[in-house]
């Protein structure tokens, strides 16, 4: 029996996955070009640990810090999940910067990949905002004062700065609304935006192709294109019949 045929006949998914796995990439692709996938992995870790943490975190001013203490001390493996989320945030930001540096130094932002670069910058901004809003959620002294300082930095921007700061804070000072606001932004607004932009980013990478490193001897378009070999047999789908496709 060919187990994936049921899915393939009803959705065409095998074709799509094969297109992604067997697409052409340059023969001298470098290890540095794995940083993008690493960033995606870090973000997925953040998303999953974040969802799990949200099942135990209480976003109320009186309950927030006790719920964090509960997660860290009492809930099974709570210390591990909270630690993964807290350190994973730093890992995510660092990997994003490294990936950005790699793309810059490889010149992979030039035509036709400029839109991809812009989407990447938006992802960086959203990632930083995600870290900023998440920092307030434990509601301890570090959270409160770091967020106060961060919002006041925003407030010192000319003309619209004070309005932006007051909008972020939900008032003249940090209050209970600030916690709810930051929780909503951290859980709903920014993750949705990041997922959508990552989808676009990956679509563009697949559509536009991967670049060679700058020291490559095979710049794009310099050699003949070999015919694509047949994908290996995995036993998951029925082999295509020879002599044309005829459904029985």
């Amino acid at each position, binding site marked *: 029996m060919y187990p994936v045929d049921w899915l393939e006949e009803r959705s065409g998914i095998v074709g799509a996955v094969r297109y992604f796995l067997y697409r052409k990439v340059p023969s001298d692709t470098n290890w540095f070009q794995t940083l993008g996938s690493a960033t995606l992995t870090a973000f997925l870790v953040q998303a999953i640990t974040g969802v799990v943490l949200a099942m135990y975190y209480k976003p109320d*001013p009186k309950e927030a810090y006790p719920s964090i203490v509960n997660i860290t001390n009492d809930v099974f493996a709570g210390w591990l999940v909270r630690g993964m989320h807290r350190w994973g945030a730093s890992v995510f930001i660092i990997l994003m910067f490294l990936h950005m540096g790699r793309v810059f130094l490889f010149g992979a932002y030039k035509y036709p990949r400029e839109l991809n670069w812009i989407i990447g910058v938006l992802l960086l901004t959203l990632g930083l905002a995600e870290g900023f809003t998440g920092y307030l959620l434990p509601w301890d002294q570090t959270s409160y*004062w770091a967020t*106060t300082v961060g919002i*006041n*930095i925003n407030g010192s921007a000319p003309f619209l700065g*004070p309005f932006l700061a007051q909008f972020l804070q939900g*008032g*003249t000072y940090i*209050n*209970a609304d600030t916690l709810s606001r930051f929780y909503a932004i951290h859980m709903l607004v920014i993750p949705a935006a990041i997922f959508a932009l990552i989808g676009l980013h990956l679509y563009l990478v697949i559509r536009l192709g991967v670049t060679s490193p700058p020291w490559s001897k095979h710049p794009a378009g310099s050699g003949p294109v070999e015919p694509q070999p047949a994908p290996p047999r995995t036993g998951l789908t029925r082999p295509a019949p020879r002599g044309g496709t005829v459904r029985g």
Partner: protein
Amino acid sequence: MPLDDLEPSREHPRVPGPSLWPVGFAVGVVALLVGIVVNWGISVAGAAIALTFGFLWVRELARARGLAKAEEVEPERRDGRGPARRPAAPRTYGRSAFLELSTLGLGGVIGGLVSLPPLAFMVLPAFLKQKQGEHDIGPLTDFPENEFVVATFMTQPSQGEVSRRTAFVRNNGTMDDQQSFTIISNHCAHLGCPVQPTTIVPNKHIQYHDVTLIPLPSPPSGFSCPCHGGGYDSEGNRIVGPPVRALDRYAFSIRNGHLYIGAPFSVSHVVGTGATARIYKYTLSFPGEHVSGIESWLYPIQPPH
């Protein structure tokens, strides 16, 4: 201005010829920007000039482009049957174009109307009902003359401890039969970190309902901020460090022998000390914002506090 000046030259067929309208537009933009600093009237005049010259410039560009385009003429064929010259048909919009525009347009309008109340719900409450009331922080006897008391009070007890603020209160005695108090906020004017008095703060405190009062045994020479090293004197004037103005202060009133702390306001600097000090008072601003001097032009409008 003769129109053939604007015809594209043969070497640069796509570039329009020289024109003076952009110069007028630039003058208008410069006047607009200068007027922001010097005088609003100059800005208005500059905006009018920029708009006028900008309009004239765009109009000339559109005209020049039209002149440069030659009419396409199909060559006549050998058998004499040339292309039939149809008169230019009037511009009409087909049904599909109308339907497309109206679907998108109506959808946009409905989407806008539906999303307007939630947007207002998201943005407006941060700016409404921001007026702070007065808070009773205790009888006047708790504030000995010429001594600092660190008072913490909750501006909104229903919200709990997150609304607790700290103020440094000094009773200046009476002047002209009026009780004078210096009440300085502990929010650093640099980025909002809590400012500390430069003296030992004892552990024991007086509790008055939700208010905590800590009398300081020796008067502090000033206040300093632990975050980035901002320093203030005992009147809240900035002495050293990154703060951009003096510490904010609170208004106060006295009723039935009790001291009530009112709304905060920002201060650029204070001349003198104690009851005879002259306080240069401004609307409450966020930390990091200049309230006086030329940099205060960067913050022309404050949101309702």
